[in-house]
Each structure stands twice: as structure tokens, then as C-alpha cells.
């Protein structure tokens, strides 16, 4: 019972946080609410028996990406004003698209659940949730080595690219202007 309640709480945290993050006007609040939502997801990973993933989520996502985003909000000239919302027509378009997407996703979920049930052949027993950091490590350096390697390259390229983009506009005339 406690498990169910805490599971529901995590799910609610994830969904409500996301909804608020999408809709509040203040950008700073939105970023923080995104963090709430990410925490909720991390909780869900725990219920899935994947504590390692939960840790990665918290460390990389919340500790890295979210802090980056919060840092970026400082660039924005107007994080609380009325200018945060898109034109009315676009807002409706967003709502429509989101609802359509939700509908489509729900359909996929239903299909996925049915497929899972069919694959287990009606077997009622849910496999035990076992932490498997070892297995992941094997996998990353074994069968998934190529993707793992590519992810590393991607991260490096991203890092270099980010620096390059920021650097590119440091032209002499701009510097002269700044001086």
C-alpha cells in the first residue's frame, strides 16, 4: 500500500511538475519545476528497480543540465513578463498539437501494454526488480560498445562545438566595441 502511494506520488510529481513547467509564466519557476518533474521521474526509476539510472538522472540531468538551464535563464531579458507567452493562435495550436500527441501516445501505450502481455504469454508473474549495475557495465563495454563510443564522441563534439559557437563571435570589431 505504501509502495502504491509513493509510486503515485512520484508519478504525480513528474506529471504535475511537467505541466506546471510548461505553463507557468515565470521562466525561473519553469526551470525549477522541470527539476521537480525530473525528480519524480527519478523516483519512478527507483520503482522500476533501476537505482543506477535514478542516480544518473539526478546527477546528470538535475545536477548538470538543469543547472545549465537555470544559468541560461539569466540571459533572458524578461523572465517574468507577459512576453513569455506565444501569440494566442500559436498557444491554441500548441494545445491542439499536445492533445493530439497525448492521444497518439496513449494509443501507443495501450498497444505496448498489450504487446508486453502477449509476449509474456499471459504469465502473471512479474519478474523481480533487481539492481544490475554490473550488467549495464558489461553491456556498455560489450554489445553496446559502438554506441557507447559514439556517445562519447558526441559529448566531446558537443563540448567543443559549444565552445566554438560561443567563441565564433569574438571578432576583433566586437572586441573593439566592447573595449
Amino acid at each position: 500500500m505504501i509502495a502504491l502511494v509513493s509510486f503515485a506520488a512520484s508519478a504525480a510529481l513528474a506529471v504535475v511538475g511537467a505541466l506546471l513547467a510548461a505553463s507557468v509564466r515565470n521562466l525561473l519557476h519553469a526551470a525549477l519545476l522541470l527539476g521537480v518533474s525530473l525528480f519524480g521521474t527519478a523516483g519512478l526509476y527507483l520503482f522500476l528497480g533501476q537505482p543506477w539510472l535514478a542516480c544518473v538522472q539526478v546527477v546528470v540531468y538535475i545536477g548538470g543540465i538543469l543547472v545549465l538551464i537555470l544559468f541560461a535563464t539569466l540571459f533572458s531579458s524578461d523572465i517574468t513578463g507577459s512576453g513569455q507567452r506565444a501569440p494566442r493562435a500559436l498557444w491554441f495550436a500548441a494545445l491542439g498539437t499536445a492533445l493530439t500527441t497525448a492521444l497518439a501516445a496513449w494509443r501507443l501505450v495501450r498497444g505496448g501494454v498489450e504487446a508486453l502481455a502477449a509476449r509474456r504469454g499471459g504469465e502473471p508473474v512479474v519478474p523481480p526488480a533487481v539492481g544490475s549495475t554490473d550488467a549495464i557495465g558489461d553491456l556498455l563495454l560489450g554489445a553496446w560498445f559502438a554506441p557507447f563510443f559514439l556517445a562519447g564522441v558526441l559529448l566531446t563534439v558537443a563540448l567543443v562545438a559549444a565552445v566554438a559557437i560561443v567563441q565564433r563571435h569574438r571578432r576583433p570589431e566586437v572586441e573593439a566595441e566592447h573595449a
Partner: protein
Amino acid sequence: MSAGTTSVLLLALPAAAAVLCACLRSARAAHAVAAAAMLVATLLAVPMAVEVVGSGAVVVGPHATWLDLGRFTLGVGTMVDPTGAVLAAIVALLATVVLVFNAWYMHDEPLAARFPWQFCLFAAAMQGVVLADNLFLLFCCWELVGLGSYLLIGFWFDRPAAADDAGYQARKGSGARGVLEHRLSPSHAQWKAFVMNRVGDAGFLVGIGALLAVSLQTGAEGDVLSFARLAALPTADLSAASLFGLSGESLLVLAALGLFCGAVGKSAQFPLLGWLPDAMQGPTTASSILHAATMVAAGVFLVARCLPLFPPDALAVVGWLGAFTCLFAASIACVQWDLKAVLAWSTVSQLGLMFAGLGAGAAAGGGEAAVAHLFTHAFAKCLLFLCAGAVIHGCHGHQDLARLGGLWRRMPVTAAFALAAVLALGGAPWFAGFVSKDAILAAALAAAKVPGGPGFGPFLLACAGSLLTAVYLLRWWLRIFAGRERQLEVTQAAHDPPRAVLAVLVLLVPATMAAPWTFGDWLPLPHGPEHATATTVALVLLALGSAIALVVWLLAPRAGRDLAAQLARVLRPLHTACAELWGVERAFDLLFTRGLGRGLAAVVARLDLGGERRLAALELDGAPRPLPASLDGVVDGLARGCADVGRAGALLHGGRVGVYLAIALGALALAVLVGWSA
């Protein structure tokens, strides 16, 4: 010279004179040229008339094809028959007389140089109506007659309406009845005349169209509108003709009624009669010819010429309407105080009488009788108007019957001429009108006895009209010329026209007698068994009418007050009705001028472009532009709808990341929804 050549000259002379006079600046020279041309025309026309009437044959003049349309042609050409020959001669003669008279009448008028050419155009057009050998040319000239009347009525184009005329208001003085108060300005009167004539002409065109349709459907080709061909139409085999389920015979009735509709407009019959009294805003000399031989005569002439085409049903309509107009207009003439208005309504009434005669049909002798009355009436009415012109000229523009009187001492010759004309028109024995009016009454009586004819209605109405004719004509003469002078300041300067003018007027006097018309039996007047009855009735009516007029006039001074006014008080409702034209004018104004004219036009204009506010705001961008319920507004609405769609489309390509994202994700989601059902 053959009659055919003469007929062309009769047309060409006035036309050439019109062109020539239009180029002349001097009024005297223009009058001289015009009068000379008309005199030559008269000298040509009279022998021609004698010749044609003597032989009784129809002379066909030169004919040319105006337009060849394959299935039929439209021609121009002349044709002279006895009626046309006499009428052409009368037109030419009266035109000459009136021109000479006008040279005196307008001797101090600055615009006088305009009169001759307009007048000659008018006369030329009328000659065209009389001498045309086909209905098409007749119609063209008919319209030009309308143009001539338009020009002449609006001769004093810059005069205001009487109510706004300071000169008239100053002249009116005390004791006046304000007879001109409700009269229109000349420029309004000319418009009214033209447009009302056009109402009739629309019917005329329908008549021509129906005749053409019937002719072509029965296989005719060539100049199908020539009178010779048309006359043969009723006896032809009409079984092939049908339109909208109407048989050929019904179409002929329709055609005849259409032609009659044109005549109703041109001859000022009920209900298109409002324009003629207003037409006297033109010079009196113009009225004298307009009321006599041209214009109004054209309508009677048209029906007389096309009488073979008129089936009995159409004739009944002609007879009833004519007789009704006769009485109707006579009743109005009795209560007029404007000396020209009495004559104008008298013309309407007399024309009604002619139509009553025409309605009796050729078999009853109605055609000849009506034409005879047309001739006699032309002379008498022309003379009357010229006398009226002399009176008005002598009295410096005063034309109120209540202020004139006793003028016979100052203008004895004019008074005598006018009396002759009055007696002629009233139908006194030994005078011209006696002959022709009797003939009409006889014809109407004869037609009444024919089973299936119009019945006794037209005859009785015509009799009542004749009675009133005697009343108002005698009243008119007595009030102007007899007794003592009512207001010396009005009449003291009056005098007869100069001798030269009188010498010309004298020419008209013999024609008011019966003798020239009955001598030699050249005028084919009907002499049926009804003639005696009709004569008796006419004489009784004349006596009765004269008695009424005399009694009213004689008693008036002795009673110390105006018996006419007393009578008017007693018969107030009747008097009011007559004076207000029985409401016809008002109804016409309400229904057509205000209703179908101005009212509907305003509605249509509003529905078309919208109101002035919308029009003023068209160019202002961004100004609120409510879509008015108008055609143009709908167009603008469509345009704005297109612009809105375009604006929505432009939103998709506005460079907004969100929009692209929405499109991409939305499309993906939709694809899943639609495509992943399996």
C-alpha cells in the same frame, strides 16, 4: 411635281431650315428663313393635298433601305394618303402662321433666335410622322417630335418655378388667384413631358415588337413594318404565330394596345396626361402648334393610320379610355383660372373625343370622324392659343382669368377671332367643330349599337364631355373679353397685334367655319342613320352648356359677388376634386416619381454600393469597415475573407520555431493516430 417628291420636300424643307436657322444669330433673319421655308412647304403641300384627296389614292414616295437585317429590313421612305396629305398641309400652314406671329410675339425676347430652329425641327419631325411609309420611320420621327417638344417647352430654360419666381410674385398683386403657384419651372416641365412620353413609347416599342414577331412568324420578309404590309396582317393567316401561349390574334391585340399606349403618351390621354398642362411653360406660340397640329396630333394620327390593325377588343379600350379622358379633362378645364390651362385641358378633352371616335372603329365611320375633328380642332386650337398669346402679351404676362375682362373693347379683332375659334371648338352650327363633333358622336352611337362593341359608355361619356366643353369654352371667352374690365392696371395697355400679324391670323379664321370642310364633300364624313340623333343630342348639349356658362356669367355681377365662386362653394368637394385633377397627379407622383422613381432608385443605389459613409471610408486603411448589406460590400467581404485565409497561411511560414515544431509533431501524431491502427 409628283406627290412623292413633294412629300420628301415637305420633310426636307423644315429640316434644312432647322439646320440653317441654328447657324443664324439674328432672330429676325432666323424667323424670316424659317417662315419662308414653311411658306414654301405650305404652297407645295396644299396642291399636293388637293391632288391626293381628289384622287383618293395612296401615293408611295421614294423608299430606301436604312438597315438590312437579313430576315427583315428597316426602311425610310414616304407615303401620302388623303389623311396624311391634309395633315401635312395643315402642319405646314399652321407652322407658317405661328412663325410669323412669333416674330411679333418675341420681338423683345433675347433668346428669340433659338425659336425658329427648334420650331422647324419640331415641324420636320411631325411631317415625318405624317408622311412616313413605315412604322419604324414613324417611331423615329415620333421620338424627334418628343425632342422638339422638349426643346420648345424648355425654351425659357433658366426660369425658375413660379413659386420661386420673384418677377411673378411681384406681378401677382392683389385679387389674383395665384394660378401659376403650383406650376413647374420650364426645365422641369420639359423633363416631365419627355419622360411621360417615354412611358408611352415603351408601350409603342412593345407594339412594334409584337407586330414584328407576328410578321416574321407568319413568314414575312423584307420591309415588314411598312404600312402596306401591316395593313394586310389582320387578314393574313396567323395560325403560325404564337408566343408565350398567345395566339396570333391575341398578339395583334397586344400590338394594337402597345401602339395605343404610345398614342396615350403623345396625346396626353388618361393616365399619362399630366405633362400637357405643364407644357404651357413654353412660349404660347409653341403651345399653339403643340396643341394643334404637331405632337398631340401625332397620337391620334398614329391610331388612325394603324386603325386596320386594331381588333375590336383593342378598339373598345381606345373608345372607353378616350371618352373617359374627354369627360375627365373637361371637368378639370371648368375650374381652371389660368387662361392657358383652360385651353390645355380643353386639348386633352378634345383629343379624348377623337379617341372616342377612333374607338368606334372604321366600320362606324369613327376613323374619318376623328381625323376630321383633328383637322378642325387644329385650326381652332391654334387660333385660340395665338389669341391667348396676344392677350398675355398685351397684359404683360398676366394670365389669371379672375383679373382679366372686358378686353373686347381694347382688342376687338382678337376677341372676334377667339370667339370664332370658341364657337368652332364648341360645335356651334355653321362652325367647323359642329361637323366633326357630330360625326364622332354619330360614330360612337353607331358603334354602341353593334353587338359586342364598346357599348353606350363611350357615347355617353363623350356627350357629357361635350356639354362641359361648351361650358368651359364660353366661360373662358366671357371672362377674358366680355363685360367690363376687372382690373384696369392689368388690362389697360392691351391692344391688338399689329396688322401684319392679324393678316396672317385671318388665314385661320375661315377654317373655323363649317363651309371649307363640307364644301365639295371632300372630307369623307360619315352620314349614317345615327347622324340625325347625334346632331340633335349635340345641339341640345351645346345649348345647355352655353346656357350654364351664360347664366353663371350674367348673374355674377348683379349679385354683387362672384356666382362662380358661390357655385364653387356649394359644389366644393366636386370643385376641389376637379381642381386637384381628381388626385391623378398626386397618385402619379406618389407611385412613380417618389415610389418607383426616387424611392426604388435610392434603395437600389444603397443596395449596390452601400451608404455614403461606407464610400467615404473606403480608402482609409485600418478604419473600421463594417460590412454593409450591399453588393459591393459582399465583394469586399469576399476579398477580406481571402486576406484572412492568407494571413492564417502566412502564420505558418512566419519563421516561428514553434509553428514548425507544431506542424512536425502534429503531423507525426496524426500519422500515428491514423496509421497505427493495425
